[in-house]
């Protein structure tokens, strides 16, 4: 293991320690005047209407799933990009080095086109709502 990771671990400790240190320092400085009124959840100055722990229409659910797929595919690109220049210097032509990745990206793009045509990459339209002006955009 490279010693780099010792330094990185040290940074991690600082990264956690710094905010905790600031919180601690502030807790020594700040007053505490507990009062029920202030502890209301903010809802534009009105009495809050219930919590947020309920079913909520997440209109980008499909996009989130796509993200998982594409993020994994992106990870597969990295080994290729790292070795690309070395591979070229080894002698084979540009086409020979590029072709496998072209095929890989091609598959990804076909997938994207399919998702696009299915409307998965746009903001999902809710069924309970009547869509007017945004429809023709």
């Amino acid at each position, binding site marked *: 293991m490279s010693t780099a990771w010792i330094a990185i671990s040290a940074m991690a400790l600082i990264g956690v320690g710094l905010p905790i240190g600031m919180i601690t320092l502030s807790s020594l400085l700040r007053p505490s005047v507990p009062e029920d009124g202030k502890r209301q959840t903010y*809802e*534009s*100055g*009105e*009495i809050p*209407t*219930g919590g*947020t722990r*309920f*079913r*909520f*229409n*997440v*209109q980008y659910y499909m996009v989130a799933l796509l993200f998982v797929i594409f993020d994994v595919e992106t990870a597969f690109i990295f080994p290729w990009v790292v070795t690309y220049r070395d591979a070229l210097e080894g002698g084979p032509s540009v086409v020979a080095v590029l072709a496998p990745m072209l095929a890989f990206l091609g598959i990804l793009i076909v997938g994207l086109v399919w998702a696009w045509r299915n409307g998965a990459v746009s*903001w*999902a339209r*809710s069924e*309970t*709502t*009547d*869509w*007017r*002006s*945004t429809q*023709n*955009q």
Partner: protein
Amino acid sequence: MSLEAPHEDPLARTDDRESLESILGDHAIGWEEHVNAQGVVIRPDEVQSSLRALRDEGGFDHLSSVTAQEYADRYESIYHLSKYDDRTQEVSVVVPTAKEEPVSQSADAVYRTADWHEREAYDLVGIEYEDHPDLRRILLPETWQGHPLGLDYDQDKPQLVSLSEHANPIAEHHHDEEGETMFLNIGPHHPATHGVLHLKTVLDGETVVDVDPDIGYLHRCEEQMCQQGTYRHQIMPYPDRWDYVSAGLLNEWSYARAIEDMADIEVPEYAQVVRTMGAELCRIAAHLISIGAFALDVVGDFTVTFQYAWQDREDVLNILEDLTGQRMMFNYFRLGGVVWDLPEPREDFFESIRTFLDSFEGSVDEYHDLLTNNEIFQRRCIGTGHLDAETAKSYGCTGPVARGSGIDYDLRRDDPYGYYEELDWDVAVQDEGDNYARMLVRMQELEESAKIVDQCVDILEDWDEDDREIQSNVPRTLKPDADAEVYRAVEGAKGELGIYIRSDGSDKPARFKIRSPCFSNLQVLGEAANGEYVADLIATLGSIDVILGEVDR
């Protein structure tokens, strides 16, 4: 009015007594003469059929206002009707109801705008409207006891105002608690509501399913305060406080016009020019705020457009301060003229206006660069917050909101007053009816107003020195004839600002009713924003441009 020659407009005049008789037939049970229009009395259970006849056969497609009042022996609702195509044709439909049982049919089925107007009448005066879709209090809290503009209202009665939690207004559509909609209060304490407006919003994800504006947070009983002031001096300061973001002179003109028509006061031509110039400066200032605040809604809270607009408005306020002595609460108009002449030395004053107008051209171009020519801005605004002309008319929209929906309606031209007729300017109209169109209308109006001010300066500069009459002779104590009634409107910054005054022969009005353009325009928010994203709801609210001081009065 009925004696005037037929209008050249292809729309035949239908506001004289004969035409109204033929339209209404048996519905009319009596006739009244109002200063501005023919008044026709109808039965309280025939409101809908009478108004429908007037709208469909008479062409009265604009319900400008609803005035409610209580007499010693009866309640009365007055529907002030007019036409979008010819504002000079007016008719007042008077609906008396019995003292014991003040129930009258609602006009909501004919004119959607009656919804809020009748709620206000119910709230403040106590007339109940049958078939009204949602007869709740609108300005006062729902727990309020009594109707403050009623004759027997006890001013000293303590009011206990309790807050209740809000329910989801579309909850019944969802039979289980697992519904996906979320009720959200936007405002009164929220960065986007331009004051103390409360939007009860139901969201489905990011989409607006239902929005219900809740107003009244800034209700200051302006009507009642005006009823307690004398015509001559004590009422004029109040209008400055309705649309308080620098539209003061426009508001003052509405009262001045109503009372001058009622008491038959002449205004010298010179004063009319001064009034016109001041009013258009106010319009520039008010539109600048509107554009700046809209930038705040669409660009974000660190937009420079807002700051630039504020700076330009500052320049306008400097000019107005030189003219009136005040920066916002001008109190400059007087019955029959204005309070004093232009400041001396006049050359310097004209010079300061010209300097401003020169730099203002560049400013307008800059607003176009920053906003309307920006591609992201166009993507955000074109096609959102759509409002078609029919809906806008039914809701009584006026001003830039109506003109943005293709309704060619501007009181300055359609019902001329002041000096506008003599000047060369155009009414800005856009047909699209979206947020972008409303912004464009305001942008163009900035330029048109600048044109008007420029012409006024030229005229004033050349005015004969011996002929600068700023005020006509007005009796020290003004007492209009008893039972005279007038409804007069001017083109305020946000649209048609109308005043209804009924005199009881004393030096104070017996009823003073304000028709606020923002009140009617705000009502249309739901129509324009339902089904849009939250972001566009905010943008639509911004482009409708309400001033809560004027909505709540």
